[in-house]
């Protein structure tokens, strides 16, 4: 009888760390779960620490150095930031990006909200499906590849857009060759590509507004604009905040459209912050200076996002 307790099928009898883990008890099971937990999160945690969290801190560090990636780096303190504060090209790129964000995000939000409301009001599921697909499709394309297509379409001489504008008597517009028009062409391209995102988000938000609330509003005689301002908009405001925050963060990082369509030009008219980071760090190999611009952009993104949440207390309505 005494021998059976020592049989291999009773792991409790093993000693040392293996026994501690394989112990056939509730405590042993909890230990196995914990061990498995650590093993399971290890790849993700490692990846995030090495390729995201670490590099953010390293960006701050690198911004204090002068370094061309070949010679050893030199510590220069805050000199990169001092240079940045006096670099009109870089400061201008922040202004340009700011203008882009305001134009692109407001156009994107307004148009996609109208489209979502229009599609939501249709009862024919077939029509809804067709429109949903059409508005959504551009989001699936690559911003870089589709910018090639739009650059051809916006071409002053053989572009299809000027061709049809000419049919209604509009003189050829120098879309990509004038500083005012180039910004507009890039805004339109960006919004065209991104509208599907906010459209889908709004469509989800609108279908979440309960029929009861809308029917009650109808009974109270609230229709048309009144219903939109007093019922739909407040009910949709949390969705609106979510869409606005993500749209602004995305637009602040715009790169492919101006890079492909205008290469930042004419002059620096469409040179965005990320283009300046790219140019400094990877064309001119000024790793430290590029990092300083990247750090500034990161801080701007954090501040703008915090501000949006702060201001949201005034207009977002939580049920």
């Amino acid at each position, binding site marked *: 009888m005494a021998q059976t307790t020592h049989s291999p099928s009773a792991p409790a009898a093993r000693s040392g760390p293996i026994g501690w883990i394989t112990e056939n008890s509730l405590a042993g099971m909890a230990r196995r*779960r914990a061990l498995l937990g650590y093993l*399971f999160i290890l790849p993700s945690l490692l990846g*995030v620490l090495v390729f995201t*969290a670490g590099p953010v801190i390293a*960006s701050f560090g690198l911004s204090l150095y002068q370094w061309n*990636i070949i010679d050893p780096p030199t510590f220069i303190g805050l000199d990169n930031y001092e240079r940045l504060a006096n670099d009109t090209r870089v400061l201008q790129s922040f202004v340009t990006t700011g203008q882009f964000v305001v134009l692109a995000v407001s156009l994107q939000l307004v148009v996609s909200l109208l489209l979502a409301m229009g599609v939501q009001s249709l009862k024919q599921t077939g029509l809804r499906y067709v429109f949903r697909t059409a508005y959504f499709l551009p*989001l699936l394309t690559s911003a*870089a*590849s589709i910018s090639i297509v739009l650059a051809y379409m916006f071409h002053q001489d053989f572009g299809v857009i000027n061709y049809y504008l000419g049919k209604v008597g509009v003189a050829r517009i120098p879309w990509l060759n004038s500083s005012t028009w180039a910004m507009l062409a890039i805004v339109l391209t960006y919004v065209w590509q991104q509208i599907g995102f906010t459209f889908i988000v709004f469509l989800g938000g609108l279908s979440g507004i309960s029929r009861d609330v809308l029917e009650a509003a109808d009974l109270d005689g609230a229709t048309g604009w009144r219903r939109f301002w007093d019922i739909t908009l407040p009910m949709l405001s949390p969705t609106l905040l979510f869409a606005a925050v993500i749209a602004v963060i995305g637009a602040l990082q715009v790169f492919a459209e101006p890079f492909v369509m205008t290469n930042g030009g004419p002059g620096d008219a469409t040179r965005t912050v990320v283009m300046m980071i790219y140019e400094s760090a990877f064309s001119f190999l000024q790793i430290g200076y590029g990092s300083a611009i990247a750090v500034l952009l990161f801080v701007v993104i954090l501040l703008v*996002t915090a501000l949006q949440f702060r201001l949201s207390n005034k207009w977002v309505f939580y049920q």
Partner: protein
Amino acid sequence: MSQAASQESTIATTAHRSLVLNRLGLLIRVTLLLAVAIIMLAPIVYALVTSLRSPVESFTLPPKWIPTEADWSSYRSVFTTIPFEQYIVNSTVVTLAIVIGQLITSALAGYAFARLKFPGRELCFWIILATLMIPLQATIIPVFVLIKELGLSNTRASLVLPALSSAFGAFLLRQYFLRIPDDFEEAALLEGANQWEIFWSIYLPLAKPGLSVLAILTFNVYWNEFLRPLIFLQSIDKFTLPLGLVNLQGYLGTGSISVVLAGVIVSLLPVLVVYLVGQRYLVEGIMMGGLKG
């Protein structure tokens, strides 16, 4: 009696009028929505029909919106002018490696965060969640330096390695695992299953919708990405599709746009297929903010 009749007819005309107004409103709405739909589809259709014209004709106006005599020569040219086949292989290898990597790491982490208890779990979760906020630009320079130090410059691995795990993926799959009730585990324990078996053969199959969402979103993001390939890759034979096409456009200038557009259309095909197969999952993921990563 006559009063009642006229009242009745007034009600009838009012009802009739509101019906007409409703019809008219619907007509206006559908017309406007249709106009926007045409604008939204126009660039894709333009790219398609222009790629089917002969290179010489490709920039003559107006565009032929209905390709009566399709000329497929541009689709041949794009393969002979540039190493287009190599671009397709590169994009496929890089994207699939990243999708598989993210599915594995995110499923493991998501399961652990949702269902396994261990000291420090909340802290680790918050660390990963906090990095969701960090934009690519804030990390790309140090990652570029790290890639160089590892000797991976100008390799496909330089694109894959940093993207093998995803904070968004871990977070997303945690949400899916949280939805699955605990009862399954208790039943499995009674039948003598171990912890790995519970994860692998019970919970993972139940999280399939979440895995689909992550796979489709990740495929879209990395198939289309441009900035990292532009920075990490130098030689043409390593290029992915978007980078190769932008390079071709710059090289050809405005020479023969049908060749470039043929390339654009080919690069769009996998994404369209993925949309047709998994649009439900795609929409679900986008609502969680996944495509802006």
